[in-house]
């Protein structure tokens, strides 16, 4: 008991959409939970604990966890809310199962940015009130600073960022993501600057979303031929907090540490063993930063992008689902969408964006759009090495 593998037994979601008006947050989460339990072929009474990822000011409720248990069938059970993003809650759930405390748990996250009238003010409030908030009317300006640093560090241009957008929107058009469309990099370059060098089309728009995922221990997963293993997962905090003053601009520092740890767990190079990557690229340059972190080389990341090696059907499909650019920025739930998409890939259920023979995937998410902190997961199916 304990310290064995942790498996994904089932997933449920309401696909991302620009606005979910008819159902309230409880009703939509209930639907996702029903789906997840059916997919896992278990009765909710078998689920011992719930790990949720919510933020008070995204919910408009303080205290967010009050309103979590009922609609997931987890009243009077173990509940832990992680004030962060979906993959962070998954990290907690993973540890709880590995510790032997519980065998079957659920992870849930939802966000409805369509209902937040002034989200920029919410995110701005995550920054230092004395030195940063007064000078930044829009916190996304931090992404602009970071993008500028990335471009100058790597000698790349906004055209590279636009290539990312073109790819992800094209993928989303196939996957059914709400923002999928056929848009050329040139079209992207024509959109107005928002936070120079970031143009409007380089920034993911919002979408409402909910995901419920059921995890189980090795024993709970026995007999299931659809279980996907969470082979390794690691979260790393930022080189900067609310102050951003120690931030290493232009690169995702957190990826290196997480990758090292995951590599040690797997006793191999996770990137070489992956068939695809799903990552929450809230801004186009973040996809390249994450990939650079994975490869240990920005030049290699750019080469892959420019030669089409990140496209569907190529060497390492990156965001075959369309990522956040194609599916929307669902705030703290975005990592859930990336995770569910990756799980579906490994089960061969990804439809028109299926990566053929996908056996292993890397999933990553950022803690928030402007923080240099994130979580990295390595998923694989039973027959992967």
């Amino acid at each position, binding site marked *: 008991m304990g310290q064995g593998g942790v498996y994904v037994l089932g997933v449920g979601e309401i696909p991302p959409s620009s606005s979910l008006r*008819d159902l309230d947050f409880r009703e939509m989460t209930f639907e996702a939970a029903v789906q997840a339990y059916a997919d896992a072929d278990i009765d909710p009474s078998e689920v011992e604990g719930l790990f949720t990822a919510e933020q008070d000011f995204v919910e408009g409720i303080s205290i967010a966890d009050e309103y979590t248990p*009922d609609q997931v069938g987890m009243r009077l059970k173990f509940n832990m809310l992680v004030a962060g993003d979906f993959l962070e809650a998954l990290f907690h759930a993973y540890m709880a199962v590995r510790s032997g405390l519980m065998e079957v748990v659920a992870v849930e996250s939802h966000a409805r940015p369509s209902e937040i009238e*002034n989200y920029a003010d919410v995110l701005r409030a995550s920054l230092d009130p004395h030195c940063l908030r*007064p000078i930044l009317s829009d916190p996304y300006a931090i992404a602009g600073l970071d993008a500028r640093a990335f471009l100058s560090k790597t000698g790349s241009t906004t055209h590279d960022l636009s290539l990312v957008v073109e790819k992800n929107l094209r993928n989303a058009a196939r996957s059914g993501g709400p923002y999928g469309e056929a848009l050329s990099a040139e079209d992207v370059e024509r959109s107005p600057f928002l936070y120079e060098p970031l143009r409007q089309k380089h920034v993911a728009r919002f979408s409402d979303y909910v995901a419920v995922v059921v995890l189980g221990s090795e024993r709970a997963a026995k007999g299931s031929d659809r279980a996907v293993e969470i082979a390794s997962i690691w979260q790393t905090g930022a080189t900067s907090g609310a102050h951003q003053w120690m931030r290493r601009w232009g690169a995702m520092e957190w990826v290196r540490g997480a990758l090292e740890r995951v590599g040690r767990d797997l006793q191999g190079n996770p990137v070489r063993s992956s068939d695809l990557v799903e990552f929450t690229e809230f801004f186009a340059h973040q996809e390249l930063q994450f990939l650079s972190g994975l490869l240990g080389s920005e030049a290699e990341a750019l080469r892959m992008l420019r030669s089409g090696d990140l496209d569907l059907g190529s060497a390492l499909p990156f965001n075959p689902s369309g990522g956040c650019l194609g599916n929307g920025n669902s705030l703290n739930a975005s990592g859930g969408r990336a995770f569910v998409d990756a799980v579906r890939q490994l089960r061969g259920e990804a439809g028109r964006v299926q990566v053929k023979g996908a056996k292993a995937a890397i999933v990553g998410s950022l803690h928030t759009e402007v923080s240099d902190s994130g979580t990295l997961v390595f998923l694989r199916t039973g027959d992967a090495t």
Partner: protein
Amino acid sequence: MQEMSVRLVKFGGETLAGLESRLAELLSKATAEVGEGRVSSWAKALEESKGRTEFEAPETLVVTPYLLDFRYRRSTGIALTRFLEGLKEGKFLGTRCSGCGRVLIPPRTFCEWCFRRVDEWIEHSGEGEVATYSIAYIGTNPKVRLPKPEPIAVIWFEGTKVVRPNTRTVAHAAGILHRLGEVEPQEIRIGMKVRPVWRPEEERVGSITDVLYFAPVRR
């Protein structure tokens, strides 16, 4: 001997879309408040901390006023929308679970006991009893006393209780938080029978406040 001071730094120079003048007014009011009461509290706290040498004490405090203004427009969903529509019509609507048989008010489209969909709607008179009550002497600022003490209660609707014979607590009852009226504080009892007193029809908007309060049933 180091000098201690508390300085007020004005929060300046940024645009707040849409509500600029209203927020500027609120902010200047808050700044004035901070200037009067708060800064002196902070100065006092700073003075007290001086005496404790273990913990490094700051010499100067800079106080930055900041107003959190987050606005949401949230869908009330299926169940609560219908509940509010019912209130507008002067009715208490609830759902009933065919699994456990419970009447659910506030209504929801799922039962959290059975984890199943609930789609049976019922209408309730709104009559019930006081499950528990209290008398409020303050609002949200504990330093300000209300002009008149306000009784509040949890009202459990008649006929909705689920009682287990071997336990002393009630397992479930459909019920809501609301105010009590037409009653003196010292008259209120747990178990007292009450009925809803509605706003006149033309004043109802589809809100929990369409009910003015619950009043004792006096026969």
